[in-house]
């Protein structure tokens, strides 16, 4: 499938003025199939799991089918292992609250310095609430998580290792096998933040061996406002709810309170039905793609970008310089020039980048950086996008010097 054919499936590229969109790590463009499915659901809608009339049953069916589609996308053992949330942040907070409620003062949660704030701040808050001990895996100079430190940092008190599957700054993919092995050795659970990973193909949660896997729809060609927490079968049953309200209960009275079984227990209130349906459609579409070919194209663009950046003497890469175990997310500093200024000038040339600390202040502190410009490549990008960035960077250096 050519890039042109792929682009033909994204409404963004049919707009009057599509730009060189290289901010995919923040939000990808939505796929036509997701948009159509969402519009169909919203055009003729009813609430789910409430009533027996035809429309309501259709909504419930669509919502359930979306859950099944997502389950297939991550190769879950059962659809009920999928909980819909409002996004990856909500999914990570769900674990911090519900799993966190089972922890005691002195129990340990191990994260890494590479985490997005959404997998850092919830654990800081849990530490404030319950007195857990929060430990942080250090980084190697190229930004990879120093998994060699697992041996010394995973103790008998470790209850959870919560790390990113792929860094939103460096693009480095975590050695999940090492993380899972270290956790299993002490009976700890593993949470993976998959927000960046899923844009680059379906994952296999059973193979990964983690217990929790969180991701957002809007980073994998689906709509905003919905995300997923997959949890290994049997784990959610033992956890208390996070948000409470309608739809997540068993019996309610002044004296009695019981909860529904998962996933309903963790989906209080009216869920984002249309968004879930849109995500399901995006996931189903992604399942049809020739991922080996997509990865080959993405890697070629990544190499083109890394090679191009290497020709600028004042550019410093924040992340691995090779192509091994990394995704096409590239952050870089330009000596003496602030990333927002770089992004501003590039933006005027219709190159969409992001600058700043990318919600990862601990990572930048660990790597001795104040911030970076980031380009993130998705399956619809082409060489012209990368070249526009490199040309624009040369222009920016002239404008800003």
């Amino acid at each position, binding site marked *: 499938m050519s890039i042109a054919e792929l682009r033909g499936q994204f409404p963004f590229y049919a707009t009057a003025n599509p730009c060189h969109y290289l901010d995919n790590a923040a939000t990808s463009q939505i796929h036509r199939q997701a948009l159509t499915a969402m519009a169909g659901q919203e055009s003729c809608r009813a609430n789910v799991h409430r009533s027996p009339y035809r429309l309501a049953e259709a909504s419930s069916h669509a919502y359930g089918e979306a859950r099944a589609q997502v389950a297939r996308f991550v190769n879950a053992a059962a659809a009920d292992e999928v909980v819909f949330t409002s996004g990856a942040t909500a999914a990570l907070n769900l674990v911090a609250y519900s799993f966190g409620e089972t922890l005691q003062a002195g129990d340990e949660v191990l994260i890494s310095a590479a985490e997005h704030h959404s997998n850092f701040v919830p654990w800081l808050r849990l530490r404030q609430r319950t007195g857990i001990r929060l430990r942080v895996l250090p980084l190697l100079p190229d930004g990879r998580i120093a998994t060699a430190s697992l041996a010394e940092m995973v103790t008998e008190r470790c209850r959870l290792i919560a790390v990113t599957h792929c860094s939103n700054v460096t693009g480095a993919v975590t050695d999940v096998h090492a993380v899972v092995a270290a956790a299993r050795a002490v009976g700890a659970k593993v949470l993976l933040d998959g927000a960046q990973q899923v844009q680059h193909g379906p994952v296999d949660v059973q193979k990964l061996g983690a217990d929790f896997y969180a991701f957002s729809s809007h980073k994998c060609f689906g709509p905003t406002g919905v995300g997923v927490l997959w949890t290994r079968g049997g784990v959610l049953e033992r956890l208390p709810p996070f948000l409470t309200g309608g739809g997540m209960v068993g019996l309610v009275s002044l004296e009695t309170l019981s909860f529904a079984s998962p996933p309903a227990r963790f989906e209080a209130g009216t869920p984002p039905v249309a968004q879930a349906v849109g995500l399901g459609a995006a996931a189903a579409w992604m399942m049809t793609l020739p991922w080996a070919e997509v990865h080959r194209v993405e890697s070629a663009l990544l190499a083109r970008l890394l090679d191009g950046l290497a020709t600028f003497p004042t550019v410093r890469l924040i992340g691995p310089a090779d192509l091994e175990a990394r995704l096409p997310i590239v952050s870089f500093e330009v000596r003496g020039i602030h990333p*927002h200024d770089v992004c*501003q000038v590039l*933006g005027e040339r219709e190159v969409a980048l992001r600058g700043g600390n990318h919600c990862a202040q601990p990572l930048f502190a660990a790597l001795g950086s104040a*911030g970076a410009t980031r380009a993130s490549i998705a399956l619809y990008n082409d060489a012209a996008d990368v070249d526009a960035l490199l040309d624009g960077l040369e222009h920016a250096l002239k404008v800003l010097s």
Partner: protein
Amino acid sequence: MSATVYQQAIKTLAEAAHGSGRLEDPDGTSRLDNPLCGDRIDLAVRLAGDAVSAVGHETRACLLCRAAASLVGLTAPGRSPGEMADAAAALEGMLTSAAVLPPAWQALEVFAPVAAYPSRHGCVLLPFQALQAALATAAGKR
């Protein structure tokens, strides 16, 4: 339009870095961060009577923020806290609602092109907000 944003006047202001450096014996200090981009400004102010007598700032930020900090360093000495509050309000008004600048603050016109980029408003406003915060701590000591 970025060629307009990064016009020579802004680059010259940033390069001049009026008021940059540590100020000894300040009456008020502040530290403000822009968490979105990591910009940080430490600002100190000294007062003489009812007017600002000196400003010192250490600004680790983008070019727009450094230019704005420089303009604060250039214009605050000799002006009252009230006048500088007027400047901050005039700047915000120009950026967010196309308000016309008062005659006393035409110097802020240099930032007019930034109005088209709401994500950058905070960069320009940060030094003026830091000055307000430093003046507030100075007032608290009096």
